[in-house]
């Protein structure tokens, strides 16, 4: 090594060459019930995982206890159910809270989950100032993309600010919220939209904190320093490198210029990552392993913009929920990248690159102009209420789908090189997919009943009463929520009390006024069928589209609704979080020709049962055909067809017009016998 060539070396304070410590390795995990998840966490920690990323089930995320009707099909499906402090104690059994960095993917009920975590620490005698971790708590992206919101925007922002205020004073290493652009990309956001919408969200929160005026200058700087991000990375990894660099620069500029933060430490853009699931394919799923690796590059290559924590999807996510082995395979990728390669030995690789600098500047310019536009419209909350951001995302998603169909965007195995040898990976004894044990849900409900029976009812009711009262005043709700936790109040009770106080919110769906640019022979064929239908029956085919259950991933349903209109249908779009009764009633009142439902949470078997029962009750089971879309494992097809589902569409069916063509055939068969 020559004396002058040292620009590629990093030195420690003693002048010795050093390398960086790796990012935190996480695996998004949790399923079935608290016992099974506790076992999983402990084995993941033993495998070398360095932090916990808790996946909670949909009832917990949407504020329902497991014994609520709407909760039953979803218990333990996409995460672990938590009903009370007793569940929390089992979940973290033998896991030392003061040594953990715990990230919880929780939003609508994040104050409740944090209160449970703090209450558990206090009951165990752990100093709560030592707790480290993150509650996701980004409600704006829930309204836009993920759907587990409960309360109106203003009240949600108030809960978030309550948490920042409480944490800064009591749990200083806790990230009260986490600005997520992750779900925006899944919903179709372009890199510019990701930058703009995520930073607008952060500005919305910080403006609200400032408005409350609860911190002095030094505290406010620390509060800004607690803002962390959760970002997505896709296949265009060079652009992703630039996007991350743009994020870091813009955050530094915004915190300095808008909020006057002097300490550079508190202006640093801290972020965790889950790489893109949207681009993973159901076709030739083994290719996804490469995609995950490439997506990892975008967030690890730049030293100046490297992630703090990384969690990777599993190769088979487009097929169903991943098994422990699938998750282990993804964890191994991180370990190989961090420990076998020399990545962590070098200073920033891109400093001085004209290409990267120019691309970063370009992204920043466009993102700033979008941010200013939203701020001029009245800010983040206003842009949620008017549906501005949501419409922009639905439009981007529509454009993306169009490019997939016409081949402008190449996806190997999906629209190019589609023939191949079948993967041996999906032919395991269990079909390569994970199934939740049905009896495990009963154990959760039994535990809930036990907690209710054993608790001091007077204390629980008093805590709830206080919660309701303080919600209507402008008191910080953290303390009373911790008391609720200790009093063994349930997730459903805590949420219902605040629903009563704040009301529930339904954001604009963003689908109205959307146009698709798809023009194809299939479209012409479908429109001919629609015209013939109108000629024969004197009206346009009518379809109701909705999402039963608690799963809020609405992209698929939105695209089908927009596509149906494009084909010439009259579409009743009913949105998310519906019961089977809601959907059947809408189908009857609207006298539709077909019902379209979409499900991604793995609860399709239970929910189609409910739907057909309800249709049967109304004498309409054989009169209105039902079609189903979503993440539906192939082994379930036969039984779903036997129940009466006429067609099943999965991510493979990305050509929206051939989907519409199939639906038109279903309608015609029904009409003409």
């Amino acid at each position: 090594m020559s004396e002058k060539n040292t620009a590629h070396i990093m030195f420690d304070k003693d002048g010795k060459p050093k390398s960086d410590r790796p990012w935190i390795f996480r695996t998004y995990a949790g399923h079935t019930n608290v016992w099974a998840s506790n076992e999983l966490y402990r084995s993941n920690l033993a495998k070398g995982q360095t932090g916990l990323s808790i996946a909670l089930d949909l009832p917990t995320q949407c504020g329902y206890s497991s014994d609520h009707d709407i909760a039953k099909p979803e218990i333990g499906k996409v995460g672990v159910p938590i009903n009370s402090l007793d569940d929390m104690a089992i979940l973290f059994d033998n896991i030392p809270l003061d040594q953990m960095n715990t990230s919880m993917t929780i939003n609508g009920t994040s104050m409740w989950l944090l209160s449970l975590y703090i209450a558990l620490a206090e009951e165990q005698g752990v100093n709560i100032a030592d707790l480290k971790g993150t509650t996701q708590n980004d409600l704006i992206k829930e309204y836009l993309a993920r759907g587990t919101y409960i309360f109106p925007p203003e009240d949600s922002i108030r809960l978030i600010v309550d948490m920042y205020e409480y944490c800064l004073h009591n749990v200083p290493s806790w990230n009260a919220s986490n600005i997520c652009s992750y779900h925006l990309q899944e919903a179709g956001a372009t890199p510019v939209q990701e930058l703009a919408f995520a930073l607008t969200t952060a500005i919305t929160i910080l403006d609200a904190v400032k408005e409350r005026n609860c911190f002095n200058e030094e505290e406010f700087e620390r509060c800004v320093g607690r803002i962390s991000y959760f970002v997505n990375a896709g296949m265009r990894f060079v652009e992703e490198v630039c996007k991350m660099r743009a994020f870091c620069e813009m955050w530094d500029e915004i915190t300095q210029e808008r909020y006057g933060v002097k300490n550079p430490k508190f202006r640093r853009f801290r972020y965790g990552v889950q790489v893109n699931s949207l681009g993973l394919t159901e076709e030739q799923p083994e290719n996804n392993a490469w995609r995950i690796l490439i997506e990892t590059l975008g967030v690890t290559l730049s030293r100046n913009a490297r992630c703090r924590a990384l969690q990777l999807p599993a190769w088979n996510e487009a097929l169903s929920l991943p098994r422990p082995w699938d998750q282990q395979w993804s964890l191994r990728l991180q370990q190989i990248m961090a420990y076998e390669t020399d990545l962590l030995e070098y200073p920033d690789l891109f400093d001085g690159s004209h290409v990267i600098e120019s691309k970063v500047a370009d992204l920043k310019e466009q993102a700033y102009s979008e941010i200013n536009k939203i701020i001029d419209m009245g800010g983040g909350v206003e842009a949620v209420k008017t549906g501005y951001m949501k419409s922009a995302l639905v439009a981007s998603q529509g454009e993306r789908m169009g490019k997939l169909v016409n081949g402008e965007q190449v996806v190997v195995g999906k629209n190019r090189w589609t023939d191949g040898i079948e993967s041996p990976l999906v032919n395991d004894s269990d079909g390569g997919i994970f199934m939740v044990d049905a009896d495990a849900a009963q154990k959760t409900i039994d535990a809930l009943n036990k907690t209710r029976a054993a608790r001091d009812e007077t204390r629980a009711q008093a805590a709830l009463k206080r919660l309701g009262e303080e919600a209507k005043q402008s008191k910080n709700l953290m303390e009373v929520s911790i008391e609720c936790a200790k009093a063994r109040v349930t997730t459903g009770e805590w949420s219902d009390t605040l629903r009563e106080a704040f009301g529930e919110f339904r954001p604009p769906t963003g689908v109205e006024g959307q146009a698709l640019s798809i023009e194809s022979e299939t479209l012409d064929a479908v429109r001919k069928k629609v015209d013939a239908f109108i000629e024969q029956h004197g009206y346009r085919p009518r379809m109701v589209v909705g999402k039963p259950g608690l799963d809020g991933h609405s992209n698929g349903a939105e695209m089908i609704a927009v596509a149906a209109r494009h084909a010439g249908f009259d579409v009743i779009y009913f949105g998310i979080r519906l019961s089977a009764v809601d959907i059947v009633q809408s189908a009857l009142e609207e006298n539709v020709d077909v019902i379209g439902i979409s499900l991604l949470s793995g609860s399709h078997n239970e929910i189609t049962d409910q739907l057909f029962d309800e249709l049967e009750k109304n004498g309409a089971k054989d009169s209105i055909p039902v079609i189903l879309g979503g993440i539906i494992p192939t082994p379930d097809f036969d039984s779903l067809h036997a129940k009466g589902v006429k067609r099943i569409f999965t991510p493979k069916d990305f050509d929206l017009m051939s989907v519409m063509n199939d639906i038109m055939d279903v309608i015609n068969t029904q009409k003409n016998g």
Partner: protein
Amino acid sequence: MPLSKHHSLIKELESIQAAMEAPLDAETRTLLEKAYALEKWPIAQLISIFERNNTDSLIKRHAISQYLAANADTYTRQATVIGLTGTPGAGKSSLTGELCLSLLKHQPDMSIAVLAIDPSSQESGGALLGDRTRMQLPVNDKRVFFRSQASHLDLGGMGKSTFHVMRLLRRLFDLVIIETVGIGQSEIEVQRLSDHTVLVMQPLAGDQVQFMKAGIMEVPNTFVINKCDEDELARKSKHLLNASLKLAKIHVRNEESQEQSIFMTSATKRRGIDELMTHLMAVREQQQVDQVAAQEEYFLNKWIQQAYGEFGLSLAEYFNKSSEDSGTFEQKELRYKSQIANFLTKLS
């Protein structure tokens, strides 16, 4: 059109007229009974008959109308029709939803139908009907029925069949609320089929009055400024609207004073809804003039104009002098078609 075609058209019209002689079939009669008992699917199926554009539906519409007229002792309901219109984004749907909830609470015996209209795509002709997501109406409650309808490229904020569906709903419910697509500078046609028209605006829209055609502001019986989430905003908006109406010398159609015709509401904060509800109930009580005949005449003329143009309208005036003016809408429609066809045959 060659003469032979006119002859075949006349024949076709005659056969339809003959088909209209038949009484209402048993199946539809059962459907009607169930619909009057407020069963949802039968109501929906009947609405479809009143929406569809084909000969079968025309004949059925006639038979049902005639049957309802003949059995007025059994089918006694005669709804008040409220037309609810307003600027896009004024929160019409949420307001309608909250209004229904307030009615259900305070008027437990009242049956309500909501017909919500959304625009159709110019390009594909299809429509996305999204008003359902903005209302949180109770499920399995027979007292409230919700239906979406596409505007099918008609101007005026309604669809071609809105009038027909209204004719049916009037006889099945106590109250019908028709929510139009968002209007801008276009005509408010909903007044032609409603007994009372409500215009919903956003706060501070008062000074926008001057941007709207004076004609639009003359139409409503009641003004609602929705999204008044704060008191200050509500006061300011009311003042502005009042001042603008006075300045534009607009006389509110309502017999009451202008002051009493303006309401400030917030659908999200549930403010001012009960007051609006009470007002509309008072309107229903006071309603004396039967507007059905006038409404029918307007839509018959509209149909004639769309089918035959201005000349058709003058012919209609001429024909009317020589023929009696009775029967169902469908009979009048058909009578006119025959008259035109005969007239044209004579001409050639």
